[in-house]
């Protein structure tokens, strides 16, 4: 189990996930080895507290095993499917606990932040993530900094428009407009990158 060599080959992850759906515990273990550090980092990013993130990861992988047979590879990449589950579990854990999570202004960790701000200095290609995530990073780097921050706040903290507005000290109308426009821009940008 090497945390330094995560496997992000979607075909390999897909094969393990489908095998886990057929109750192959060894494949499931390999899926865990390949993705748990990424998903644990993600849960930590949402929850900040180690024990809460461990709980979310555990709940997430239990749900991944229990639902692997329903995974439809034409609808979602394996990482997308698993991240959705872990994110939902993280918010569940947060709602159950009495803890409140601190919301910091910088939504992304150092290296990714730098790449989003200035892809010339920190090439997105060099980041350790799947092709889907690189494409999204590229398109997000083309958004204005504040717009990017609004999207990230909503995504990582499950906030409503008014909560984002409060957090950023912006009028709610502005937040709604920024989110709508940013999502449209991301869609257009990603579609362009997909086109041959």
């Amino acid at each position, binding site marked *: 189990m090497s945390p330094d060599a995560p496997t992000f080959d979607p075909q390999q992850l897909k094969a393990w996930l489908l095998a886990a759906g057929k109750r192959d515990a060894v494949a499931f273990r390999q899926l865990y*080895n390949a993705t*748990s550090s990424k998903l644990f*980092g993600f849960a930590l990013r949402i929850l900040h507290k180690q024990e809460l993130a461990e709980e979310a990861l555990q709940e997430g992988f239990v749900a991944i095993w229990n639902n692997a047979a329903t995974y439809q590879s034409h609808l979602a990449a394996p*990482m997308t499917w698993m991240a959705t589950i872990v994110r939902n579990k993280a918010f569940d854990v947060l709602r159950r606990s009495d803890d409140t999570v601190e919301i910091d202004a910088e939504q992304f960790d150092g290296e990714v932040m730098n790449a989003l701000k200035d892809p010339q200095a920190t090439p997105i290609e060099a980041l350790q*993530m799947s092709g889907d995530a690189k*494409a999204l990073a590229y398109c997000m780097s083309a958004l204005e900094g504040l717009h990017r921050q609004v999207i990230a706040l909503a995504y990582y903290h499950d906030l409503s428009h008014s909560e984002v507005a409060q957090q950023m000290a912006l009028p709610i109308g502005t937040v709604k407009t920024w*989110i709508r426009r940013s999502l449209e821009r991301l869609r257009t940008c*990603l579609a362009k990158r997909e086109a041959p």
Partner: protein
Amino acid sequence: MNIRGNDVLRQKLASEYVLGTLKGGARRRFEGWLHNDADLRHITAEWRQRLEPMAEFATPVTPPRRVWRQIEQRLHLSPQGGWSLWRDSLSFWRSLGMASSALAALLVVVMAMRLFDAPQIAYVASLTDEKSQAVMLATADSRHGALEVRMVGNAPVPSDRDLELWAVPKSGNPRSLGLLADKGSVKLALTERALGSDVALLAVTLEPKGGSPDPNGPTGPVLYKGNWVKL
């Protein structure tokens, strides 16, 4: 409200549903529509595929080992139960008996080898598959401190798996002796792990690349096994 045919609105709702900003009654209403609107489900899946990779923007952090152990326990994936069950089963010991005639033939070969000085063979095992076909020959050379495993049959291994050799004591956890190649022969260090007087047999299991991730024993199925006989 009817949102069919209003593509702009459908895209907006689906995207904010995935992002999370669609809340309360509006969110529940949207989930109701999802139920009987395949196209809306498709649009939503597309938005997921667009936005969810943001998860990967977080820096990877290796989770503590206890997380996997807890998952394993909750899902009853632990090999522990299966392993001891297998060892204690009558049919297992019976199948070893069936393999004994193969072992007798093997002993002749080994005895002959001893005449030519060379290695000092202290232990030998013929590892057989479920049909009692010999697949591997394991010999412990005490003079050179080597444990050699030679393929005598076919042992195909998927490219993402490894074969792992175990010393199985009469009680307690199996002890890993090392990884095997799927053809030719492999020389492993001969240590106390393999020579303990409590070791009844050797077994080979199919494991993830790099060997069993569980420090307490194998995680995969037993493919080959044989009595570990002192000469």
